[in-house]
């Protein structure tokens, strides 16, 4: 499980990208990779081995050098030893020492003299000798490059038993120290004088002349030679070594300012006369001390000589090296490496022995920086790397060419074949290089395959051609289908009818634009909803819809009434079952036929009037004659009983009768009233007939342009004078409001007819308002006149009792009246309606609200009527 991601990572990173290359290249790449790994491994092994070998060689070399260094240090010591030994062979020193010891018993020859002050001459004598010896020592020091050289006089044969080395001469590289006794044979209270090397000037041979030198007291004598007295000598100028037991020169290491110093001492033998026997014998008379400082300079010289970094250690502590100036003592570690400054070093150590016995005096150390070794190794590594790289490259090239010849060329041939076939050249055949091997077999198989493909592709081409043709045909059909679908959708949506499709469950499947408009519900919201939810007006028809779907028989309902915004609307509903394609459902077509119903109603109305008119026209002649007879007879009767007519009086006289008496009689018997009754009845009948005749299609006088405002004013005046007819209404108590537009053009019409209509409306309004008994309400008629589009509008509005809907619907019917019998004929509004609709091509409508009022609206075309 855990290996899996790593493996896939490896695949992704290294193997998969190879798929881009050819097989030959892949093999080559793998070979190169293997060789590269091999080269890297080899270089690493060689590098590490060589580094170790080099380290070993270096260490060996360092050890050998350390031996040499040790020998060189011993040699430096032997130089000091040589200097010490050379004292006994130095004539001047020996002579001077003899003078001091033999001839100038020097403070101690005579024990009786011990402790007594020393005479001035002896002080000067000793000084002279010290200067002679100093001169020799100085040159020896310079010659042998010694740091210090000194000489301490000792008492030979222990002549002064308690006296230590005295009358010392000590010369270091800074100053010369000389001492003298204060008392004879007593080393206590030694006086020490000092002179800096720069001031030192040895006195000439004539200096110690008696006459000149001895004239001075000893202290001034020292001062004259620029010596000054100091409190004590430096540490190195004191002899502490066990000189009595030393027969040979001895050396040891001491430290001055933390630097190792080789200190060599040796008692010098000179011939001294034995005070007892007076026989001269070589006797130790003075101890010579030599110091050689092993400082940085010495090491530098040694480094130059040996060609390796060197150092010195004392008892396993590294004291000084030629690498750094600073003295930073550090212990030598066991692993033979140490750190100096910022670098690491290998080191080797060898003991330095000044004598054959005892512990080693010093340790000689040689060092080599490790970084040098590393650099060397790197160079080596690089060289090996280069060499291996070249070898790998050459091998890779050899393999590449081999693979190229054996695999890649045949493969390339095969590839070309594949590519050619891929590009469509089915006739391509591969050249077979070697028919025996696998590639040869593959190539011949490939050629066979090519032939097969060639055959198949011809067949395929054939099939493709057929397919393409089919596709083109299908596309064309699809396009046609799409067009048809759009066309059908357009048809469905362009239809003014509401079209709704429902499935067998009564859910909406189709919803056209008209349906959206009527319900206000968009098609996408309506689809899938129950029909009664989205079209509440159809609830009453739901049963029929389901029935239609079940029985698969169309259903039709006409002029279904519904109320929309307090208005009666009529709809025709048709339900067609869907029977094709197994789609259960139905299509509903709903048409708003309100306007058609209204027109039909109007036409029926008009038709009624026309039939009345026709009837009237037919019988008018027959009725008018008798009516005429009645009316004219009554008129003649009235005339022939009138006292104004001369013939009447004459006729009465002829028969001997007084006309006045006749008239009185007639009056008494109410004959006049009956006659008037005949006349009124006749006139009423005549009026009815003439109104009925209005409905007939008779020829009309021409229309004339009329100012309707003047016409209305005129009519109002007529109405005002008409009030007294039977006192049914009183126009003077009615408030008349005129709302006339100013800009109304003249309207073509028949003024008398329009007057008749308006007068009728005004009378009706007045009569209606008389009927209501509301004293708080002022009766009011508003007369409006305005233009609207291509029509003139006349409105007559009253604030009377209004009408119920069922009455309102019938007001234009002929003979329909709400008035008492005898008050109205029931023809007034019918005639008005007929005049406006039929004679003027206008419209007439009535709106009414019970208890609020009634408004009649007349529209007349402005452009004149089309006859």
């Amino acid at each position, binding site marked *: 499980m855990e290996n899996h991601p790593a493996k896939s990572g490896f695949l992704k990173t290294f193997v998969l990208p190879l798929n881009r290359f050819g097989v030959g290249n892949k093999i080559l790449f793998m070979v190169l990779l293997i060789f590269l790994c091999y080269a890297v491994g080899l270089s690493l092994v060689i590098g590490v081995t060589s580094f170790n070998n080099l380290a070993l060689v270096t260490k060996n070399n360092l050890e050998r050098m350390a031996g040499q260094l040790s020998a060189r240090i011993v040699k430096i010591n032997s130089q000091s030893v040589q200097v010490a030994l050379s004292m006994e062979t130095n004539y001047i020193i020996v002579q001077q020492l003899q003078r001091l010891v033999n001839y100038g018993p020097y403070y101690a020859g005579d024990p009786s003299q011990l402790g007594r002050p020393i005479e001035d001459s002896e002080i000067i004598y000793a000084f002279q000798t010290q200067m002679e010896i100093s001169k020799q020592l100085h040159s020896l020091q310079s010659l042998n490059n010694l740091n210090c050289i000194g000489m301490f006089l000792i008492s030979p044969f222990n002549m002064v038993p308690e006296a230590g080395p005295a009358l010392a001469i000590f010369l270091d590289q800074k100053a010369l120290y000389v001492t003298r006794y204060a008392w004879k044979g007593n080393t206590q209270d030694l006086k020490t004088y000092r002179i800096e090397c720069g001031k030192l000037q040895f006195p000439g041979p004539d200096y110690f002349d008696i006459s000149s030198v001895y004239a001075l007291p000893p202290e001034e004598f020292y001062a004259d030679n620029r010596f000054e007295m100091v409190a004590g000598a430096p540490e190195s100028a004191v002899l502490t070594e066990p000189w009595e037991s030393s027969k040979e020169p001895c050396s040891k290491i001491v430290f001055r300012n933390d630097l190792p110093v080789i200190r060599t001492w040796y008692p010098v033998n000179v011939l001294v006369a034995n005070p007892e026997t007076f026989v001269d014998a070589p006797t130790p008379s003075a101890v010579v001390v030599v110091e050689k400082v092993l400082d940085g300079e010495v090491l530098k010289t040694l480094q130059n000589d040996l060609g390796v970094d060197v150092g010195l250690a004392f008892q396993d502590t590294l004291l000084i090296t030629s690498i750094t100036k600073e003295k930073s003592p550090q212990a030598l570690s066991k692993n033979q490496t140490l750190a100096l400054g910022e670098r690491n070093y290998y080191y080797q150590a060898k003991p330095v022995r000044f004598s054959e016995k005892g512990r080693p005096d010093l340790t000689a150390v040689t060092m080599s920086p490790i970084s040098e070794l590393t650099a060397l190794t790197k160079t080596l590594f690089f060289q090996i790397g280069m060499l291996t790289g070249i070898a790998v490259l050459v091998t890779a090239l050899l393999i590449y060419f081999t693979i190229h010849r054996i695999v890649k060329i045949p493969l390339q041939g095969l590839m070309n074949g594949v590519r050619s076939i891929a590009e469509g050249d089915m006739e391509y055949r591969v050249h077979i290089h070697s028919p025996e091997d696998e590639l040869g077999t593959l190539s011949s198989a490939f050629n066979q395959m090519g032939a097969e493909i060639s055959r198949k592709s011809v067949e395929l081409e054939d099939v493709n051609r057929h397919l393409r043709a089919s596709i083109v045909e299908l596309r064309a059909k699809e396009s046609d289908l799409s067009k048809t679908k759009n066309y059908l959708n357009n048809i469905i949506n362009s239809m003014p009818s509401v079209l709704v499709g429902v499935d067998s469950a009564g859910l909406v499947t189709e919803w056209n634009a008209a349906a959206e408009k009527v319900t206000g519900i968009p098609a996408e919201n309506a689809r899938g909803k129950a029909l009664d939810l989205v079209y509440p007006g159809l609830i009453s028809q739901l049963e029929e819809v389901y029935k239609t779907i079940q029985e698969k028989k169309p259903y039709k309902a006409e002029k279904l009434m519904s109320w929309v915004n307090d208005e009666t609307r009529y709809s025709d509903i048709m339900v067609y079952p869907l029977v094709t394609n197994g789609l259960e459902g139905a299509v509903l077509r709903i048409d708003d036929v309100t306007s058609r119903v209204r027109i039909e109603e109007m036409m029926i109305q008009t038709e009624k009037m026309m039939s009345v008119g026709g009837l*009237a*026209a037919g019988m*008018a*002649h*027959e009725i*008018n*004659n*008798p*009516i*005429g*007879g*009645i*009316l*004219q*007879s009554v*008129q*003649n009767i009235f*005339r*022939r009983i009138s006292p104004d*007519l001369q*013939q009447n009086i004459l006729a009465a006289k002829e028969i001997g009768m007084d006309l006045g008496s006749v008239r009185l009689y007639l009056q008494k018997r109410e004959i006049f009233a009956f006659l008037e009754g005949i006349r009124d009845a*006749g*006139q009423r009948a*005549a009026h009815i007939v*003439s109104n009925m*005749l209005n409905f*007939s299609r*008779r*020829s009309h006088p021409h229309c004339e342009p009329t100012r309707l405002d003047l016409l209305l004013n005129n009519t109002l005046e007529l109405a005002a004078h008409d009030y007294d007819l039977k006192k049914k209404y009183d126009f003077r108590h009615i408030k008349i409001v005129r709302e006339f537009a100013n800009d109304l053009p003249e309207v073509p019409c028949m003024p008398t007819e329009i007057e008749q209509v308006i007068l009728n409306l005004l009378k009706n309004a007045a009569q209606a308002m008389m009927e209501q008994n509301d004293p708080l309400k002022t009766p009011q008629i508003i007369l409006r006149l305005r233009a609207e589009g291509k029509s003139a509008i006349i409105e007559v509005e009253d604030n009377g009792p209004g009408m119920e809907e069922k009455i309102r619907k019938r007001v234009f019917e002929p003979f329909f009246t709400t008035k008492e019998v005898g008050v109205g004929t029931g023809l007034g509004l019918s005639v008005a309606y007929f005049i406006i609709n039929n004679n003027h091509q206008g419209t007439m409508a009535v709106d009414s609200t019970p208890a609020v009022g009634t408004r009649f609206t007349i529209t007349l075309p402005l452009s004149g009527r089309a006859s």
Partner: protein
Amino acid sequence: MMETWPKVLIIDDDDIIRVNLVAFFEDENFIVRSAISAETGLQLLCGEPFDVGVIDIRLPGMDGNRFIIKAHEIHPRMKFIIHTGSADYFLPETLAAIGLLPRHVFLKPLKDMRLLIQAVRELIAL
């Protein structure tokens, strides 16, 4: 004196109408002759001239229109008033051509015969 009184010919097949008109015109001091048909009227015209004729249109036999044309041929100076019961009566061109106007057409029933007298007087005055 009597001769100066205008002479009126009334033709109407309806007796009550004719009798009433005759009575009314006589009371207004016109010389009145009446006929029940156009043919009878024409016989009367042949005997004597008339100033004005008050003619019904729907008559048995010859109708009023033709009578007026014939009468006009006999007495070109004679004037005519039409008194008809046909609501849809239309004044023919031929009658208009001999000077008849719409205001000379009276529709039955005529409530006030004074209108007729007035029209006749106007015609005579011309």
